């Protein structure tokens, strides 16, 4: 079986359209980030979360009124597990009081429907701000490492274009999270630690497809005239198209499985990964290599790649 075999799409010729699409994605993401902001989870803003599971189905309004009557200031939502609810309140150092308050009021309020508190998480504000910093540091360090590595293995233009593509991917997913954050209780799309993990994984993976294209360009460009570069770039993208799509495809299969089976704690992560890999594949084809070519035209010097065979 073969897909996308011996294609000859003219990616380079239509790159301006791709730039336009990317710009649109980024700008709408930015606008949403500025207007709606992000839906931070307790990892990053502090607070307490209690997951309560009932033995029988319970009405969310009923649970909410019981909890509110108990004097707890908080938000009650349906949780992505069967017969479960999520209570979110401000940070309390003592989760025991919170727990006994919740248990007691629900026991009295819904005597026929026993419940269990299946998890409690409480994150203080100082931890939350530290986590934000570590996340930023990790992302920046990853980008710097990738810039350095690709710079050494190829050339600085290739490395920069690759990192721009990563930025593009991460920002697009971030914009998507901002746009859809909090819309659905099934998948609240909160920014928490697992999403940071997703961003870093996307950053590491986005460049792999790009490297495959670069590698082919490197193989073919040696000794060629700059006037042929456009043709070589386009052919290289076409020649590697099937593997770019298939490598992402196998990963997407795994991600879809995670989304379906791994439960609510992983769902946001799987969502971020899914779109990250999708956009990453797109940017490897439509963003990274075209940028190198445009940059190359401006600088006029022929491409000298390290490690060219």
């Amino acid at each position, binding site marked *: *079986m073969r897909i996308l075999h011996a294609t000859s799409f003219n990616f380079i010729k239509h790159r301006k359209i791709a730039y336009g699409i990317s710009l649109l994605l980024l700008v709408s993401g930015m606008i949403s980030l500025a207007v709606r902001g992000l839906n931070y989870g307790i990892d990053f803003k502090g607070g307490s979360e209690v997951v309560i599971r009932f033995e029988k189905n319970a009405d969310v309004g009923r649970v909410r009124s019981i909890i509110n009557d108990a004097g707890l200031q908080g938000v009650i939502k349906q949780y992505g597990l069967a017969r479960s609810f999520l209570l979110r309140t401000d940070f309390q150092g003592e989760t025991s009081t919170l727990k006994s308050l919740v248990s007691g009021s629900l026991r009295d309020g819904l005597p026929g429907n026993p419940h269990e508190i299946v998890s409690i998480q409480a994150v203080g504000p100082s931890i939350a701000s530290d986590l934000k910093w570590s996340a930023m540091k990790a992302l920046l360090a990853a980008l710097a490492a990738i810039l350095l590595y690709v710079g050494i293995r190829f050339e600085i233009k290739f490395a920069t274009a690759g990192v721009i593509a990563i930025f593009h991917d991460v920002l697009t997913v971030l914009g998507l999270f901002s746009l859809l954050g909090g819309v659905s209780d099934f998948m609240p799309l909160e920014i928490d630690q697992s999403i940071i993990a997703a961003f870093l994984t996307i950053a*590491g993976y986005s460049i792999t497809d790009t490297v495959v294209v670069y590698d082919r360009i490197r193989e073919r460009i040696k000794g060629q005239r700059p006037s042929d570069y456009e043709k070589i770039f386009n052919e290289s993208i076409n020649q590697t198209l099937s593997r770019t799509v298939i490598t992402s495809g196998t990963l997407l299969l795994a991600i879809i499985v995670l989304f379906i089976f791994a439960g609510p704690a992983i769902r946001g992560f799987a969502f971020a990964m899914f779109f990250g890999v999708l956009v990453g594949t797109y940017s490897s084809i439509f963003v990274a290599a075209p940028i190198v070519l445009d940059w190359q035209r401006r600088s006029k010097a022929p491409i000298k790649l390290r490690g060219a065979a």
Partner: protein
Amino acid sequence: MKQNRVKILLIVVITIVSVWSLYPTYRDYALTKKIESLASSRDSLQFLLDHRNEIEQAREKSLKLGLDLKGGMHLVMEVDLLDLIDQKAWNKDERFYRIMANVKSRSANSGANVVDLLASEFRKENVRLSRYFYDIRNSDREIVDKLNKEAQDALSRAKEVIRNRIDQYGVAEPVIQAQGTRRLIIELSGVTDEARVRKLLKGTAKLEFKLLKDRETLLRTLDRINTTLSQSDAAGAAPDSAFAGMPPTGADSLVQKSASFRPLFEVADEYSRDYVASLLAREDVRALLPQDTELLLSAKPDENVKGEKFYSLFLVKKSPELTGGVITEAKATFGSQNVQPEVLMEMNSEGTAKWARITGANIGKRIAIVLDGVVYSAPVVQSKIPNGNSVINGISSLEEAKDLEIILKAGALPAPVRIIEERTVGPSLGSDYIRAGMLSIIWGFTAVALFMIVYYHKAGIAADLALVLNILIVISVLAGFSAALTLPGIAGIVLTMGMAVDANVLIYERIREELDEGKQLKLAVDTGYKKAFSSIFDSHVTTLSAAFLLYVYGIGPIQGFAVTLMIGTAASLFTAIVVTRLIFDLLLGTSFMNEKSFG
């Protein structure tokens, strides 16, 4: 051919090591199943006794499950270094308290080093640290170094104390790590009584023996407080007179409290305890107390004949006669005269000598036994106590007495600790996660493996075999290094499956290209592996570096994800390249493989 033999050997050895390192996990599982299957509890006990060593060994070496899968508590505790610094300072004045308040507000929102914050605040105010700390001749640099040393000691001491407490409470395989300059990460699996553990960990257990002032002084002091406060509060409450006509509702209770002063008595009923405690904490109330004294409440209420409960107030000398540092041994028991639980304590020689002198000099007077700022008992000294024994009574339950015993034996914390992060997962959610994780692995593997076979035919089977070995390596490395498997870790394994075959995809696509150019199969395979290597290597390096940074900067569960991703990616360099290559080398000459085998 010789090269192939080395490869075969390598693969066989790696497979055997992996299986061997996973064998205890299988044994542990099988033994647990066996015990569950035994009908009577007597049979299972007998089986447990017979196979005790085997079970223990298997359990020790089996794959550990993370807190999220097994259920348990993850805590981050912060040692209050500000309190420690405050303890070290002398000549404290208003400016010092102002600076400390600034440091406090700054440190509340970051994990920065408190001593550095302190130094920078002092610089801002243009005050030398030696004004308040250590020797006046010390430079700021020296003092910062000394304070940092103290802070470091406090953290390691706190870690040790908390480890002692947990060990004595009895939690299997606790994890206690220091993080940064003032935090401890504590992981306790399978904890059932979280509230008790929390209390046990946080208790500073500051034990003090304080001389009680006589009753007349107490009454005189209370009187003075009552008159002063009723005057000043009446004046302060005047603007609030608008509320006077309103009935007191729950919502105004705060206003009511501050507006109307209720006088203090020798005892406080159970409902007004919190109010009295808040009064006693007030700076202006403290200023009314006689020199070097403080007012304390009792830990437990006394009951009168009518069943009403009352807490007593004690006026004690502020500087303690003796502190808990001298306690060497503690034992929770039931008291001799009644069924009240109590804790017996023994002191070291220095404490014994002091205790004898103190009791000898104060016969007929009362000495309060104060723990964390509340009075547990205030017995009258009957005679000189020469042997260093003392008793804490007034404890409400044996459980509390047991916890006190643990805390006293483990020693006091150098500074108060706070819980700043807590994640508790119940065992039922954990088993849900395990099921979800298993399903993800099974379906993830099925999807990826099927795709490879459909798309690449026989070569796909080779890639799938390599994938099986890859997963085996990931899990066995986790088991071998006693790293715990968490739900994010399982997600990492599933993602790895999707990424590990990438190397094969790159190779196979290249081989197809070479075949299309009309190359011989053997040559095509050869070139395919050679030419695909550089992009495979580059992509692995970038994925590995991202995972590594995630491991370095991430915490807790996310590290579990980073670890499995790292192992899986690194292992796939070997499995996807070496293993599949070997399979082709062995089969290429035979009729089993031809040009069509690559789909």
